[in-house]
């Protein structure tokens, strides 16, 4: 049986003469000044080969040497499928759209912004990128859609937008709370057939098309080509939602979480609880307690690296009562692992990623993994109180300087351990940490509790003394086990001392003394200048 392939244009080819004639016409009608165009392509290639080819590949197919570790994969320019556009679904992007992605990067992916490139370099690069695909050589330059104008935000608009969210059935993929945990989320694939996440709309700073109301509105009407995110334009044009309601929906999306990444805070301040410590992670008891955000990134120092971590940050709250301390840690993870709905997702992730250095996965007779790993988080502290700024190695310490670990996973629960590096963790026999975790609509809430001072394991928290703390997290359903984790750098946790009179008076005194000393210094300096 001969597999005869479709021939793109041959079916209407009337013969060689016509082809020649057409080629002649094409040569004449090739409007752009060819010399300038060729210069731009050549200049763009220099920029591309230097900065882009390692991920996107020399031939632009998104298959550079680093690509196999990345999900989503780098863009394949030959297909001219661009997620971030102002044009209709399936349309080519404008030059400005391509520039937007180069300048800002695509948050939530491995594509960074490129502030090092000049405007001229980006111009040349755009010409070169477009030359990878024949589609740009066809037809007129793409035109942006008419997005209309924003009727305005405010509580009423947000409420109407929340209704439109349900009318448009956004929750099928993005989940009711917008954390990317919808029913269809585990089955989503990009145009290559690789697993792709429904965006977590509560973390707007990792949305790859920008986080403003206008950005959200644009993404809904254009869709994100190459991904499952469709264009809502026909639903709008057929009256399922009105143009104003699409804007209101954009306002609602923009209200689902902070617009920008919360500012980095070095120190978790664990305040003194009024009226006892919370007994669990419930919302009521923690409502007024300040939450500190810590960004997480994939562990890429040791093999196997994790360039596409699920957990990209966590929120920490703390309270103590002078005897015990309690922490609440929250992070978004669309799967409560192990969850059989996500088994296929896990297998697709395993197949898609270059897991060089990973432990071989044990398979049963049917070829399915025998272990479906749980979700996990750990908090690490130095075993000894630090001297100066010296802290153990941030990847769970080393042989010389071990770390004390509070561990939790969705199967074994809470425990304590001693870490001497990512390979070496031993549980501690004395286990003073207790706690529990709940998962709801794509978010884990972990409650931890422990005496502030204990004799057995050597780790004491002293009120008023900052203690280093760092985090690590795993999403089992995304095949995150062992070294494939999210990690943070070191921060501090500080148990605030009681608000006694000395606490208030001492800083005041210090401020007064400092001020007086400064005045003296200034006077002397002025005197010296006068004398000189």
């Amino acid at each position, binding site marked *: 049986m001969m597999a005869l392939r479709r021939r793109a244009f041959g079916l*209407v080819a009337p013969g060689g003469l016509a082809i020649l004639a057409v*080629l002649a*016409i094409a040569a004449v009608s090739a409007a752009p000044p060819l010399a300038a165009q060729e210069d731009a392509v050549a200049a763009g290639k220099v920029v591309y080969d230097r900065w882009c080819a390692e991920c996107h590949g020399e031939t632009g197919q998104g298959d550079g040497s680093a690509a196999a570790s990345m999900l989503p994969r780098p863009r394949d320019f030959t297909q001219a*499928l661009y997620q971030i556009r102002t044009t209709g679904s399936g349309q080519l992007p404008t030059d400005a759209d391509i520039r937007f992605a180069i300048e800002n990067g695509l948050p939530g992916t491995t594509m960074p912004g490129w502030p090092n490139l000049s405007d001229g370099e980006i111009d040349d690069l755009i010409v070169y990128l477009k*030359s990878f695909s024949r589609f740009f050589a*066809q037809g007129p330059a793409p035109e942006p859609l008419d997005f209309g104008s924003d009727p305005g935000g405010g509580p009423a608009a947000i409420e109407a937008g929340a209704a439109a969210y349900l009318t448009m059935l956004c929750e099928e993929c993005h989940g009711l709370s917008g954390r990317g945990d919808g029913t269809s989320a585990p089955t989503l694939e990009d145009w290559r057939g690789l697993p792709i996440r429904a965006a977590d709309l509560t973390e707007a700073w990792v949305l790859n098309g920008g986080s403003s109301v206008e950005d959200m509105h644009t993404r809904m009407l254009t869709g994100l080509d190459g991904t499952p995110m469709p264009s*809502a334009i026909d639903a709008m044009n057929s009256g*399922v939602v009105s143009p104003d309601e699409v804007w209101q929906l954009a306002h609602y999306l923009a209200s689902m979480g902070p617009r920008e990444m919360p500012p980095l805070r070095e120190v978790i301040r664990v305040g003194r609880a009024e009226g006892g410590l919370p007994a669990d992670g419930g919302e009521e008891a923690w409502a007024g307690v300040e939450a500190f955000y810590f960004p997480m990134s994939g562990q890429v120092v040791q093999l196997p690296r994790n360039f596409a971590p699920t957990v990209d940050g966590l929120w920490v709250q703390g309270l103590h009562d002078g005897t015990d301390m309690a922490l609440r840690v929250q992070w978004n993870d669309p799967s409560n692992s192990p969850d059989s709905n996500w088994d296929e997702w896990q297998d697709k992730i395993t197949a898609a990623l270059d897991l060089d250095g990973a432990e071989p996965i044990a398979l049963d007779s049917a070829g399915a993994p025998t272990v479906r790993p749980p979700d996990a988080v750990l908090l690490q502290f130095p075993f000894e109180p630090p001297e100066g700024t010296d802290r153990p190695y941030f990847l769970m310490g080393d042989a010389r300087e071990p770390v004390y670990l509070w561990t939790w996973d969705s199967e074994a629960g809470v425990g304590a351990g001693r870490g001497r590096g990512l390979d070496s963790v031993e549980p501690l026999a004395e286990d003073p940490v207790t706690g529990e975790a709940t998962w709801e609509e794509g978010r884990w809430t972990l409650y931890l509790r422990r005496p502030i001072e204990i004799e057995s394991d050597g780790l004491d928290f002293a009120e008023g003394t900052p203690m280093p703390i760092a985090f690590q997290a795993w999403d089992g359903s995304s095949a995150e086990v062992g070294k494939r984790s999210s990690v943070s750098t070191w921060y501090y946790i500080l148990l605030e001392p009681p608000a006694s009179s000395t606490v208030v008076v001492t800083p005041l005194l210090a401020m007064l003394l400092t001020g007086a000393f400064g005045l003296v210094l200034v006077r002397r300096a002025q005197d010296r200048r006068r004398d000189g």
Partner: protein
Amino acid sequence: MRSHFWNRSAALLGVVAMAACGGGGGSSEGAADDAGEAAPAAAAVDPASVGTISGMANFGGMVPTMEAIDMSAEADCAAGYGADGPMAQNVLVSDGGLANVFVYLSEGVSGAPAASGAAALDQVNCRYTPHVLGVQSGQDIEISNSDNLLHNINATPTENRGFNISQPRAGITSTQRFQVAEVMVPVRCDVHGWMQAYIGVVDHPYFAVTGPDGSYSIANVPAGDYTMTAWHEEFGTMTASVTVTAGGTAAASFDYNGEMAGADVPMGDALVLEHGTNRIRVERTQ
């Protein structure tokens, strides 16, 4: 035959071809739901110069068992099926006839009338109707939703520009077109992973999709010698030679059996522009 010219040229080529042939075709009758009026530009068919091709996609041997589709997530859709529930549609055999085979003239066509009328693709009980659709390049495809729930129609061609449109309610219609020939364009719904359709795009109206009994018929084909290609989603492609005589009916049938499963099933070839040249490289995934 591999084409080596700019696609811009290819787009113009179609225009030149049409002009050169003087609209030598006629009213067309595709096998799908696109039987419509003749395009105004096309001259009337001279009945004395056209014939019909008809035949069967035959299936011999054991018919593969289709997997049940778990539609429990969409109770409204699942309710639309009988006691056995919804089954996959990859291989549909009835009385020895294989349905959903896309047959088309792949060589020998030297001109064709412009596309006329619209083809229709519906979503009914969380499945595409039809499962395999043939259209002419440039022809309108009206995609509608008979289910009162969210579908997205995600078409992923390689020769054409794709689209991905949401239809969150019944009654929405989206009109799309593919500009150049491509066999086949996969269409899927990301909300319902089991939903899959295929659209065959060719440059002329001489195509059909076999019906439930495996039969097909293509009318108004200009007399001449042709190669026909038959495409099936599990069994790949096979070809047959056919000679159409004026006023006659030519027969062309295709024989399948279960052992052909797992064949190379062509989707649109990826064409890659070779840098610094006017050449287009055809990437084949074999």
